[in-house]
């Protein structure tokens, strides 16, 4: 987060549209603590933003719905806190953040720029999920491209990696081990 460079500070006489746009811009600066190249917007966890004027507090209130990526992912609390801090610093007075579970988050909600950032960071981005939650997906093997040398000749080392969202792969060509942000 680089607050000093931002000019998102809101004013009481801004329009609703302007303030809403600013909120989206502010959230672009809040990153995933586990994968810091991704913002909460890139990740696709922000499901709704509702801005309201709160004259009694002489400011703007905002209500944000976020959805966890994985049921047990501890990063959601950190991201929720990050969103609150960023909005407070930009002058919001009345902030509500609630967690919604349904519809369940999917890697298909990750932005295209987010996927590119992941690859540049050395993590193979998720492919489009073909209904991961179906029983015929039990034994399916995916072909994952190496984010470093782009070879398709890679092998799965473990379906579970350093965090809940990643699997561990190795490239058979360049021999580098790498993380794959798995479909969900």
């Amino acid at each position: 987060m680089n607050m000093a460079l931002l000019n998102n500070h809101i004013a009481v006489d801004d329009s609703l549209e302007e303030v809403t746009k600013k909120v989206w811009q502010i959230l672009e600066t809040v990153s995933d603590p586990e994968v810091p190249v991704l913002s909460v917007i890139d990740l696709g966890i922000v499901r709704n933003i509702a801005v309201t004027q709160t004259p009694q507090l002489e400011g703007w209130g905002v209500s944000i719905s976020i959805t966890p990526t994985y049921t047990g992912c501890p990063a959601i609390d950190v991201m929720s806190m990050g969103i609150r801090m960023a909005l407070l610093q930009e002058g919001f007075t009345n902030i509500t953040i609630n967690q919604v579970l349904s519809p369940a988050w999917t890697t298909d909600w990750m932005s295209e720029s987010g996927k590119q950032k992941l690859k540049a960071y050395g993590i193979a981005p998720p492919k489009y999920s073909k209904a991961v939650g179906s029983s015929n997906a039990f034994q399916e093997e995916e072909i994952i491209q190496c984010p470093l040398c782009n070879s398709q000749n890679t092998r799965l080392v473990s379906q579970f990696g350093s965090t809940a969202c990643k699997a561990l792969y190795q490239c058979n060509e360049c021999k580098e081990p790498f993380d794959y942000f798995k479909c969900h």
Partner: protein
Amino acid sequence: MINDHLLKFTLHLADNALIIGHRNSEWCGHGPVLEQDIALSNISLDYIGQARNFYQYAAQLQGNGATEDSLAYLRDAEDFKNCLLVEMPNGDWAQTIVREFLFSTYQYFLFEKLQISADQQLSAIAEKALKEVTYHVRWSSEWVIRLGDGTEESKQRMEKAIEAMWPYTNELFIPTSFETGVLVQSFGFDLSALQATWNKKVTAVFEEATLCIPDNTTNKIGGKEGKHTEYLTSLLEEMQFLQRTHPGAEW
């Protein structure tokens, strides 16, 4: 009555997830290789996440100041409604794999049904967790096949593990009054309806693993009604120790 049933059913789902999550987490730092140690710890984390969601909902249903923490840390063994299978000790790697495979396959088919239901919160949690459970089933299936169709030693250990775990599987499908109360009335199906689908999946994986379903085993039941083995008592002693000794302690 329906609310009492719903509360008990939600606690049952929470307890199942917490206890198997805790059991699996006992492998952390002890796994056979680093990758599998990490895999099982990840799976535990998914279960603890599930448990938190279910406990939060149960706390809301129960009221009276109940919280997810009070439900997890301050109830006694006889209040726990988990099935016996999940409290079984880890044993060797084979036993942990068999327990994980049998339970996650059950959870998969149960959550598949729960996600389409009259109770919004239970559906939302099931929909969310189902994606993770799919990975649990896939991971444990692969291990069942690798070990069953592996060396003489690994096959023999798997056979022993299946022998030990199988008596606890029928309990999964014998409904208690609270399960029937919720599932039949709000979801339109009964637990026994899942058994055939579960059996088919388990049989298919066992066949690939050159393993057999044992016949003539006894049925060990009672966990869902609060009648547990001594294994749960010692698990709770360790898990609840801190909150019992220092009530309200926080990290």
